[in-house]
């Protein structure tokens, strides 16, 4: 029985090996091109094994990118925006989520329905009025201008409500008997318990912030305010004038590095975040 199971597994992996390889080829190719000299790439992109093996190997593209160009500025902007957005969403969604799940107030049901209806509004339906609003406020070309629109999206609140509803009331009652007020309970009891849910929200937000394209495209017009995602798009469209294919691919690799590392470390949370975020909008 055991051997049959093993044989079936072996068969399955053999069958999946080719699709898996094909699936990886585009990414491998990008990494490989980023490690080849620009002069060679101008001549041919299929030097060794269709260009999938970086030979001759060079790190010049990365060195050049970090020495000149704006990639490091864009990278820094992305980091500030993504971290700012993550912290902001965490603060707003834990407080509001706790209030909706555990506190009583007048008009709770109505407000909750109003907030959940906000899940139906796609970014594309509000980016034009947001643009005019931010123009009036003078918020374009700034970090907060890129952070704030996403803070209003209720998906994080929704995840936190689901979590806080699942915590047993006993913990809270015990703390209340010990004389803790609502704020102390929230800070010392609920937040430590909520760490996994907060991780889910944080990762969902960070990934979204890092990869967001439409709003930065509209709001950040000066190159020194670009995020790395946006900067990469501008490199693509000015491809002919840029320093070469290898450099462009190297900036693609740099742009992907943080999210790929984040994903590999926190895979469990990413998968959870996708499952929760996916099934609820």
């Amino acid at each position: 029985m055991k051997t049959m199971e093993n044989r079936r597994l072996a068969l399955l992996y053999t069958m999946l090996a080719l699709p898996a390889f094909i699936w990886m080829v585009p990414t491998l190719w990008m990494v490989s091109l980023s490690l080849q000299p620009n002069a060679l790439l101008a001549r041919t992109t299929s030097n060794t094994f269709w260009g999938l093996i970086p030979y001759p190997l060079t790190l010049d593209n990365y060195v050049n990118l970090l020495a000149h160009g704006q990639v490091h500025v864009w990278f820094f902007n992305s980091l500030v925006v993504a971290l700012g957005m993550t912290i902001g969403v965490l603060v707003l969604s834990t407080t509001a989520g706790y209030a909706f799940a555990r506190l009583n107030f007048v008009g709770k049901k109505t407000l909750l329905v109003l907030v959940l209806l906000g899940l139906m509004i796609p970014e594309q339906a509000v980016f034009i009025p947001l643009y005019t609003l931010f123009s009036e406020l003078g918020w374009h070309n700034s970090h907060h201008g890129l952070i704030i629109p996403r803070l209003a999206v209720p998906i994080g609140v929704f995840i936190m409500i689901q979590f806080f509803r699942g915590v047993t009331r006993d913990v809270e009652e015990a703390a209340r008997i010990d004389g803790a007020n609502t704020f102390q309970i929230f800070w010392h009891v609920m937040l430590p318990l909520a760490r996994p849910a907060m991780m889910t929200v944080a990762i969902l937000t960070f990934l979204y912030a890092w990869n967001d394209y439409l709003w930065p495209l509209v709001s950040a017009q000066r190159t020194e305010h670009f995020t790395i995602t946006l900067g990469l798009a501008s490199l693509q469209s000015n491809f002919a004038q840029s320093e070469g294919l290898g450099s462009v691919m190297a900036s693609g690799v740099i742009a992907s590095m943080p999210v790929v590392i984040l994903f590999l470390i926190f895979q469990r949370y990413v998968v959870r975040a996708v499952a929760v975020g996916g099934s609820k909008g």
Partner: protein
Amino acid sequence: MFEQFKTDLRWAGVRQNLVAWVFLLPFVFVYVAFLIYPFGRGVWISLHDWNLLAVTFNPDAKTFIGLDNYLRLFWGTEMTWRAWARPVLQGLCVLAAVFFVWRYRIGELRWSTLWQCLMVLLLLMFLFGWAPGEGGRWFDRRFWPTVGNTVFFVAMVVPAITIISLLLATALNRETRGAAFLRTLFFLSQVLSVTVVTLIWQMMFSARQGLVANVVREFGGVPLSWLAEPGFAMAAIVIATVWWSIGIAMVLFLAGLQDIPQEMQEAAKLDRANSVQAFWYIILPNLKRTITLVVILQIILHFQVFGQAHLMTQGGPNDQTQVLVRYIYQTAFRDSDLGIASAMAVFLFVIMAVFSAVQFMVSREDEQ
């Protein structure tokens, strides 16, 4: 004494409300100011003749024109109604109607649901019948083709992603290291940004330097410039999108597979069902709800496609890959016509809202 108790109670209530609002206020403020208010403002802009540049320099340079923007998008001159103006679309409606009636006959659909579906289809059939007649033309020649391209894109991407990710999820739903590794591998492309994905695939499909072209050349073929070739450009975008986004669907299917009782699969094994039979008779019927949800979710997600078309093909060739969000973006920020662009955004919202409502109903149905 009793009065005192009542005032205390009332005060406790007020205090409770105050405390709750301290927690709520930050989010509610941001939510109203940066989501609800802009949304309302968007609808308001859509009722105006509103030029971005003109209004920026002179806030009074807009005029209220009611629903004219919507008319300019949806309608044309000399509009006439014919029963079979669009045989393909109307034929699909008839097929859908037959499908729903069949589902009702085998008892999988309630009478009220069937009735609602048929009414919607009838309405669609009627709307599809309208077109500019003799000597007439659409006010906006690009709008409906753009919507059509978007629908076509969704119709290609969603089934492809659903089928591939369902097969992968079924194959990789086991607790071995190899399966975990392959899951990671197939999910990885999902975390890349749209600009990285388009960078890769733009190069992949390049006629001179692309990997596809290099391989074709190796086998003696003549490489195509996919992104500039009519018919191939849309295919290229679809391939890039499928590669990019099977991850979410796969994860949702894996979650759905975890919910299938283990005994059922054991029983199938004891009955010597092979894997194809097990897939067909055990997994598929049990995943019906998940499949429906994944399909609706994908429709909502991919209807908003923008980056792929904007960066890989710039909507070309001949507008073949022009999609709705890109048209909104261009109308607003290249043509500066915020009124029309906002009307299109409202149209997009209505479509998204319909699918969100369906999603909500489906997910509520399985909680019952």
